[in-house]
């Protein structure tokens, strides 16, 4: 039981991180039809900027702020400069984001070096807390808590605000939204930057959870995020949340019981969804 609880909490923490990456990817894809292959690289930039600020100032909060801001700016610039000119040309967009992924990953290696860097939690988040007689690292609890807060926040944003409603309408039918007199292009930039900010926020939070960062850090998470998008359905918030938790939990449990098959099970899960419900667990049939 103690083992089960421990794996459950670890899986939830990982699921929350994957959610932070996947939700942006899914919204960007659902709204603009752009498969952002550089999303993982934005994640990596968030982690490195956060790490830099953290090691130079010692403030974890500042690090989170800086990493998130870096992601927002990168996402904004990326959409404005590169993606915008190619709406309607999906192939060019995918190819472009792949090129940006290469350049951004190499950029990290050029600036911070290609080697692994240590990333410890701040002192106020170190240590363990007892839950049901078991000791858990405070940091994991912190990740789950923060993830839940963001999840609820994004949900409220999407359901209760004007922008959220425009975004959800845009996922359904961008042309109709445009016809109703709303500047969809402006919303595109914002969503792109917002999705990138969420990913890089997740990256700074993820750093201390894994204890280290490497330039290729984004790729693994991006793969998981792709799987989540397929499982949950594109542009679907609930799908991204449920899919991310599912993938996080499977990954953690498999890593304990059958580590060799951890990735295989997630890919199999994706294949199963593609066979039985190609539009995703929560996706609407079109």
């Amino acid at each position, binding site marked *: 039981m103690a083992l089960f609880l421990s794996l459950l909490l670890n899986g939830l923490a990982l699921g929350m991180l994957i959610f932070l990456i996947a939700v942006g990817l899914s919204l960007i*894809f659902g709204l603009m*039809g752009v*498969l952002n*292959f550089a999303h993982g690289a934005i994640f990596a930039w968030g982690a490195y900027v956060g790490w830099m600020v953290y090691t130079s100032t010692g403030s974890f909060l500042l690090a989170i702020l800086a990493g998130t801001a870096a992601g927002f700016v990168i996402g904004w610039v990326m959409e404005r400069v*590169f993606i915008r*000119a190619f709406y309607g040309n*999906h*192939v*060019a967009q*995918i*190819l*472009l984001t*792949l*090129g*940006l992924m*290469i*350049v951004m990953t*190499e*950029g990290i*290696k*050029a600036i911070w070096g290609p080697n692994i860097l240590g990333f410890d939690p701040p002192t106020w988040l170190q240590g363990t807390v007892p839950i049901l007689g078991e000791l858990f690292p405070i940091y994991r609890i912190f990740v789950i808590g923060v993830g839940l807060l963001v999840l609820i926040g994004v949900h409220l944003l999407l359901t209760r605000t004007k922008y959220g409603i425009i975004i959800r309408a845009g996922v359904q039918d961008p042309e109709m939204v445009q016809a109703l007199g709303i500047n969809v292009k402006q919303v595109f930039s914002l969503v792109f930057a917002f999705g990138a900010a969420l990913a890089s926020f997740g990256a700074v939070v993820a750093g201390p959870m894994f204890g280290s960062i490497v330039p290729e850090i984004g*790729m693994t998470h991006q*793969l998981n995020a*792709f*799987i989540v*998008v*397929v499982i949950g359905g594109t542009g679907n918030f609930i799908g991204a949340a449920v899919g991310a938790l599912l993938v996080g939990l499977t990954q953690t449990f498999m890593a304990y019981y059958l580590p*060799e098959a951890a*990735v*295989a099970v*997630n*890919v199999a899960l*994706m*294949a199963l969804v*593609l*066979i039985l419900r*190609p*539009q995703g667990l929560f996706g609407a049939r079109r």
Partner: protein
Amino acid sequence: MRERLFNNKLLLVILLAALAILPFVTDSKFLLSMMITVFIMAVYGMSYDLLLGYTGIVSFGHAIFFGVGAYSVGILLAKTGDKGLLWLAVGLAIVLSIVLGILVGVLSLRVKDVYFSMVTLAVGELLFIIAEKWNTLTGGNDGLTYIPVPKIFHDRLAFYYIALLFLAVMYLFLRRVVSSPLGRTLQAIRENEHRVRSLGYNVLQYKVASIVISGVVATLAGAMWALFQRYINTSVLGLDRTIDALLMTIIGGSGTLIGAVFGSGVITFVHDWLSSLSGVSPIFERYMMFFGIIYIIIVIWFPKGIIGTIRDKWMSLRHSRRS
């Protein structure tokens, strides 16, 4: 007319002849090895061009096929020590890649084209991890060394001509494919999928056919690679190998076939040149950044790549001269 330049049979024959007499001009073993690399990678790049340039779908796991070819040959020959099993290994590799191609294609393309990108990435990553973990079969990260190959492949000069022949045959085969009714339909799908569908074509079947043909050619390139190197490790399945295919096709010019051959040459030699400069400044260790920037510039401003752009310039020049 536009098709003429670079597809011009005379020009190609001259190119082929120049490549065929190259070993008589130089006896640099290094240069011959580089050229063999260029030939094999060119076939791999052309196979990717069939997908990207002619069908208009983006694979992020093309290394799957290259790796299947390399590992089939590597494992079967290295584990049995029997060189005679080469043809069996190649046959096995082809069957495997056909099955994989159909599986991945049907599963993902049933939904949307971009799903193909995501699913190929996931399957590629899965195969990469299997190759890393299944030590007893693949040798893990260390790979398979001293793969026994038939004697003729030991001779570098002979291998040079085999690789050149391989490139020529594969080029002719793919050129035949893209100008066949199948290839024409693929290009029509690339241009306007809805219209092709409304004309009654089963678009999914055509796309899967394109994946299978492309996959088999990439598999053969992978098998040649294993024969050439006599050593393989997990890098044949890695994402970097897929990115190689993308760089070659895009930089050379997608939708031209011959572009991938030029792309392969450019990348192989520039890569070698830049890595030799890494002693001068550590920035040259980041040669991928250089390729990445070139790649982005080409995608934005020269979507037809080097060959396509030169071809267009040449055409407009001739046009203006005539008028």
